[in-house]
């Protein structure tokens, strides 16, 4: 209520000076910067040697914001300490105050918390502490106010920016998800927002009601969300009313767009020549660092002292140098490089496109390209670094190598001549055990991470014995393992440039997508064709079966890794079966498939060891199949599945088909009746289909004889 009242006064009187306020979220509520963010809050991470939050605060000050409320959650103490010492505390027309909370797990919680504090009573700027911008806010603010006077439902103005012209650059520059928006070209009202678009769907569905009100709308794929919002006080109360809103975009924006009862509207403001971008992941960290060095963010560039950063000189070729640098004569500093105060660089060292922080010691014959090296890092002679991030206090022993995309967290030591593989993340802290992709849990996890961190940090320090295998002899640090899914996505978010093969894959994917949906469309486009309905139904079943199989496989693998009890696995498989509405046989074949896959993925050198792997897996997990193999049909299904695997996805099994079949028979997973029936069924099939029946001819014969003897 309080906030709403304030808003009205603002609209009616408009005469008294209402100070412009801003809410700065100093927590991104994500885990994209892990492992670094386990030890240091994201907003304090340096970008071109200045903490991110300084860029955001400097911009807010330049945009005539008078009061900033910094909301901090994880590592709040570090942020408060930093701000106390920073220049922002004693500014005449700019006050920075912090709001601290420890039980917020999302931006939604944070805004609800701030609403309860009752500090916001007019329009405010909502921004997260990792945003770099130099845009002029006046125009957007003016537009917002004018709209508010005409229509009190216009609660938010979102700043957007034209992205790059090529679709591939657009998708890869900042490492963010693809964004689709629909905007009314006349009023700039946002009608549709989709940033987590489902790649499976080749089409975008816009409500027909959009066109009922506007003669035309424009649909964009070429815009970039700057994550700078001008909000009315209602936004906070909306978060309070809808306690399930967590994510600013995914829940709040989409929630408002879908809900037409309240009629709240969101508008967009497009900036053209100004800069605005948010550091969301390592990839955008890289792109934005380069933008800063190339001065797109002027006046927020290293040689302008907008915070307490060190005085820096800009030299030719975009080389920035702070004072007290000791540089050997034979060292070569390439273009677009920043070198911080008090760093030393040894002879014949080559540095290009990199940022080197304060007090770093770089030996001789070192190659550094596209790296972000923070403060007090020691790099001994003969190291080779490519596209990596090195946090404070990292030590690279002589001759060590970082492959592209490596992230070394605080105080990690890389052993002599050790090669850190591409995309590795190394930290002194062990990887948190619970890794769940579920969104809610991720938030919670992040929060609990704080407490967890402190414990382990102490443990880590007291621990003097480091396993040499992880980062080489004399090294310190854990290499965080990545789950398979993470690994697939890693290249998208990494500091390393995207490998060409991935780019090709990306375009290929787009292309394949197109292929798919055209066929769909054509099926739909033909009117009055009776078959079309059936066909698409079949497709659906096929699709869901495939998804189901994937799910089962993931469940099974997780169970194997986490050593989940058998009963629990069966329970999970059962619930999956119910949600996909499939038969028992489907479960059996899917489970069987995942087991064989596991056997295949376990290292093996020869067909014999493959059989051994399969044997091991089957002895351990074979009983899981029991509840699903209640009929002979189910068993036949499994054989057919295996046959399919052998001829398609896992050809390595083809050579050992009989052995494995025999093994399954021995383990009572498949009964002889099923095998004989299967052989019978295949009798009439094509020659090509009979390859495996022929292979197992002897075995079948033996079975036949055995059963005859019994008779």
């Amino acid at each position: 209520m309080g906030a709403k009242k304030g808003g009205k006064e603002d609209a009616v009187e408009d005469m008294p000076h209402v100070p412009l306020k801003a809410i700065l979220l100093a927590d991104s509520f994500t885990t994209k910067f892990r492992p670094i963010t386990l030890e240091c809050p994201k907003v304090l991470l340096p970008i071109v040697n200045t903490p991110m939050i300084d860029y955001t605060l400097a911009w807010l000050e330049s945009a005539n914001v008078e009061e900033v409320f910094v909301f901090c959650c994880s590592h709040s103490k570090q942020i408060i300490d930093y701000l106390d010492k920073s220049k922002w505390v004693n500014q005449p027309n700019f006050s920075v105050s912090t709001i601290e909370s420890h039980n917020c797990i999302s931006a939604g919680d944070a805004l609800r918390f701030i609403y309860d504090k009752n500090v916001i009573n007019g329009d405010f700027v909502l921004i997260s502490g990792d945003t770099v911008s130099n845009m002029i806010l006046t125009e957007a603010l003016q537009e917002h106010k004018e709209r508010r006077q005409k229509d009190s439902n216009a609660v938010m103005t979102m700043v957007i920016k034209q992205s790059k012209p090529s679709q591939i650059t657009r998708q890869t520059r900042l490492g963010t998800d693809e964004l689709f928006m629909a905007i009314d070209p006349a009023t700039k009202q946002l009608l549709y927002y989709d940033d987590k678009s489902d790649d499976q769907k080749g089409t975008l569905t816009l409500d027909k009601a959009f066109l009922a009100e506007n003669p035309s709308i424009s649909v964009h794929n070429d815009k970039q969300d700057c994550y700078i919002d001008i909000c009315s006080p209602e936004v906070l109360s909306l978060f309070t009313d809808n306690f399930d809103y967590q994510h600013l975009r995914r829940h709040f924006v989409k929630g408002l767009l879908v809900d037409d009862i309240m009629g709240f509207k969101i508008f967009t403001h497009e900036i053209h020549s100004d800069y605005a971008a948010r550091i969301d992941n390592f990839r955008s960290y890289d792109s934005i660092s380069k933008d800063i060095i190339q001065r797109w963010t002027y006046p927020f560039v290293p040689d302008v002292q907008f915070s307490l950063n060190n005085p820096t000189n800009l030299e030719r070729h975009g080389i920035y140098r702070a004072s007290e640098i000791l540089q050997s004569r034979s060292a070569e500093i390439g273009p677009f490089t920043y070198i911080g105060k008090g760093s030393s660089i040894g002879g014949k060292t080559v540095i290009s496109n990199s940022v080197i922080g304060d007090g770093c010691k770089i030996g001789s014959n070192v190659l550094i390209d596209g790296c972000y090296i923070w403060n007090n890092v020691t790099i001994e002679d003969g190291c080779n670094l490519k596209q990596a991030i090195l946090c404070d206090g990292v030590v690279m022993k002589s001759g060590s190598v970082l492959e592209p995309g490596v992230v070394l967290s605080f105080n990690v030591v890389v052993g002599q001549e050790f090669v850190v593989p591409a995309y590795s993340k190394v930290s002194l802290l062990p990887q948190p055990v619970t890794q769940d992709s579920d969104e809610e849990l991720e938030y919670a996890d992040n929060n609990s991470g704080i407490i967890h961190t402190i414990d382990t940090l102490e443990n880590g320090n007291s621990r003097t014995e480091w396993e040499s295998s992880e980062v080489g002899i004399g090294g310190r640090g854990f290499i965080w393992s990545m789950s398979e899914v993470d690994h697939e996505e890693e290249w998208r978010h990494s500091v390393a440039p995207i490998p060409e093969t991935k780019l090709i894959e990306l375009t290929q994917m787009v292309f394949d997508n197109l292929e798919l949906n055209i066929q769909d469309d054509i099926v739909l486009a033909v009117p009055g064709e009776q078959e079309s309905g059936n066909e698409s139904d079949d497709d659906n079943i096929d699709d869901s079966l495939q998804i189901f199989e994937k799910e089962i496989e993931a469940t099974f693998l997780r169970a194997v890794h986490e050593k989940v009890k058998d009963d629990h696995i069966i329970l999970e498989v059962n619930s999956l079966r119910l949600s996909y509405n499939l038969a028992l046989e489907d479960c059996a074949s899917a489970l069987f498939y995942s087991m064989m896959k596991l056997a295949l993925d376990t290292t093996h050198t020869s067909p014999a060891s493959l059989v051994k792997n399969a044997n091991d897996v089957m002895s351990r997990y074979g009983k899981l199949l029991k509840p699903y193999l209640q009929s002979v049909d189910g068993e036949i299904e499994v054989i057919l599945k295996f046959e399919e695997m052998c001829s398609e996805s896992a050809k390595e099994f083809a050579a050992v088909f009989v052995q494995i079949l025999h093994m399954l028979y021995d383990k009572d997973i498949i009964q002889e009746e099923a095998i004989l029936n299967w052989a019978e069924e295949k009798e009439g099939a094509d020659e090509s289909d009979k390859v495996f029946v022929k292979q197992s001819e002897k075995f079948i014969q033996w079975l036949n004889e055995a059963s005859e003897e019994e008779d």
Partner: protein
Amino acid sequence: MDFQVVVLAGGTSTKLAPLVSKDVPKSLLPVANRPVLSYVLDLLEQSNIKDLIVVVEGEDTEGLVENWISEAYVDRLHVQVASVGEEVGTAGALRAIAHHLTASDILVVSGDLVCDISPGAVAAAHRRHDAAVTALFCAAPISGPTESGTSSGKDKTKKPVRHNIVGLDLTQQFLLYIAAGMEVEKDIKVQKSILRAVGKMEIHADLMDAHLYAFKRSVLQQVLNQKQTFRSLKQDVLPYLVKSQLRSEILLNGVQAAENGNEDNYNMDKVMLSQLLANASTPSFHEVYALGPNGFSPAERKTHKCCVYIANKTKYCARLNSIQAYSDVNRDVIGDASHLSGCTFSVHNNVIHPSAVLGSKTTVGPQCMLGEGSQMGDKCSVKRSVIGRHCRIGSNVKIVNSVIMNHVTIGDGCSIQGTIISSNVQLQERALLRDCQIGAGYVVAAGSEHKGELLRK
């Protein structure tokens, strides 16, 4: 110009009952006292297109149309009239006359189009982009009488009727999305891949498909042959081409098909030409897409272009496809779009044939037309109406916002408003008609009153 023109003149549309009949097919319905087909033919003649095929439905219609054309356009146009079965649809009609088509590009025009947009401009746009199809779009007409109308028309909603939902690129040259027919009422489904390729798409609901298309013949025939279920150009062929433009199945096959014939060289020339064009101007998103990133393409991508020609808002464009459209078009041709009528208007802004006879104190207002040999009695008043040839109109007759065709007899004291009266209708004394449509040969009884009715024998 290597264009072949096909005019789809249709047959006896049920939508226009009771105005059309076996004797008067849709294409011969008079608009401002001349058949609607003549507007298209004149337009083509102005663009210097003299060779054309007129396709009609049914053999009876063929005879009627052929007679009329040979009479009216003798020595002016070389017209071939072909008839196809009824209810085959526009695509079916083209399929049926496929053997007549030989030129590299085909211009398909609907016979009920009344407009002043040069087909040459559409053809030029088609050629410029080397497009598979180019469609003409114009601002959707405001249905119902415009501001000049009487109060009776004003309560009608002024909202443009949604004919199409189209998605265009930023330059408004390419067609990225189209929904026609029933799909207009559904949610809009945009292909992400096209959106990715262009970046931005504008979706319009205020444009109307004018049913004037330029097709590449090879493309058109491929589609018609492969997709036997396609019946309508607008609802099947065009949406199909638009949807598959970044993954063309057509050109690929088109080239293969051409290898059999002598068109090899010709196709080569065309490829060269399109390459030249591509170099000359900034490449369209189709070419960029076909190349892939960094000029690398995982598989050779076949694309084809679907272009649009958006008519200037000041141009007139309407289709005679409903009763409402019929009275609208008549009103416009003697009113706002009078340059289309081909007549010279008098100082009073009306056209009265010299042979027409007017009684004393009879007034004919502006935006009226009185045909050859018609007679009017005393104290009559005509406002914003068209009266055909050889009508006999008694005294004290009021005619407002109406269309009266030929040989109509109107008794004394009749009052006619917003009504369309077909040929050979007889109105006896003091009949009162408002917003009615009367079929040919009908007799309206003396003193009867009709409002919003459809009267036919």
